[in-house]
């Protein structure tokens, strides 16, 4: 019998640690940017991240008003800090038809990572999370796999693999 090779344990990526089934929207109902933001924020309330989704939505919209958080290639990362959230959280959402998110490349966005966090003076994790998301979705094949993932567990596994690539 050949010896069993055990892969060394990998540390869980930051993004992986923040992913929650309750904050995953497999297919957004919304067709427009404004209502898509609202739909994503609403799951934060059901996930007990906030009891004041309307205030969090205002914070997200304020950030969006400064410049779209769409990065192009179908990706958007709306983000905001709000006193009204209890903890850092990420909503992952998909739209197979895509939503006009005022992307720099003019293409509709299909894959959304909404990050919210309480305002802290020093919170490198917040920026690191933004960076990790941008890095994780830089490959076209990863983006395609994320859109095709059949459930949350599969999507989380793809993101974990992508962050080690």
């Amino acid at each position, binding site marked *: 019998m050949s010896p069993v090779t055990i892969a060394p344990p990998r540390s869980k990526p930051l993004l992986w640690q923040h992913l929650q089934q309750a904050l995953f929207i497999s297919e957004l109902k919304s067709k427009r940017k404004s209502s898509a933001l609202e739909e994503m924020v609403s799951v934060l309330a059901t996930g007990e991240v*906030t009891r004041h989704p309307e*205030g969090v939505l205002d914070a997200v919209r304020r950030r969006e008003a*400064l410049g779209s*958080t769409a990065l192009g290639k179908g990706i958007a990362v709306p983000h905001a*800090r709000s*006193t*009204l959230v*209890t903890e850092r959280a990420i909503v992952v959402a998909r739209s197979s038809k895509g939503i006009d998110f005022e992307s720099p490349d003019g293409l509709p966005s299909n894959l959304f990572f909404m990050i919210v966090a309480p305002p802290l*003076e020093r919170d490198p994790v917040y920026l690191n999370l933004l960076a990790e998301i*941008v890095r994780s979705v830089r490959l076209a094949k990863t983006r395609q796999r994320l859109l095709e993932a059949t459930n949350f567990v599969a999507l989380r596994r793809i993101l974990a693999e992508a962050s080690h690539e």
Partner: protein
Amino acid sequence: MSDVTFDPLDALVQLQDVDCLLKELRDPEMASQEEKLGFSIEGISGLERARERLASQVDGRLLQTYERMSQRFFRVIVPIDGRVCSGCRINLPTSSLGRNSEGASYDLCENCGRILYRR
């Protein structure tokens, strides 16, 4: 962005969020990191106008307290976490957890002086 009129304490929470965003945008390191990641950040004049609008909805004394305390603390208005001030992590006496003498649903932490609110 909505133009909803807030309860004075809600307006103050929103004001703090705007101030936090303004601090981030005025911090060259923080702003440049976002831009390096590919996020666009245009002018902040709209944000400054939103701040003025929110400030006008906060009670004068409360706003004065907030402005004074914001010289000391990054976060002036903080949630009560159980019975703990989430700013300084000190246990609050039961008497701090009711309405204050002016009938408003907030109080000041007896230890650090931050404005407390229930989330």
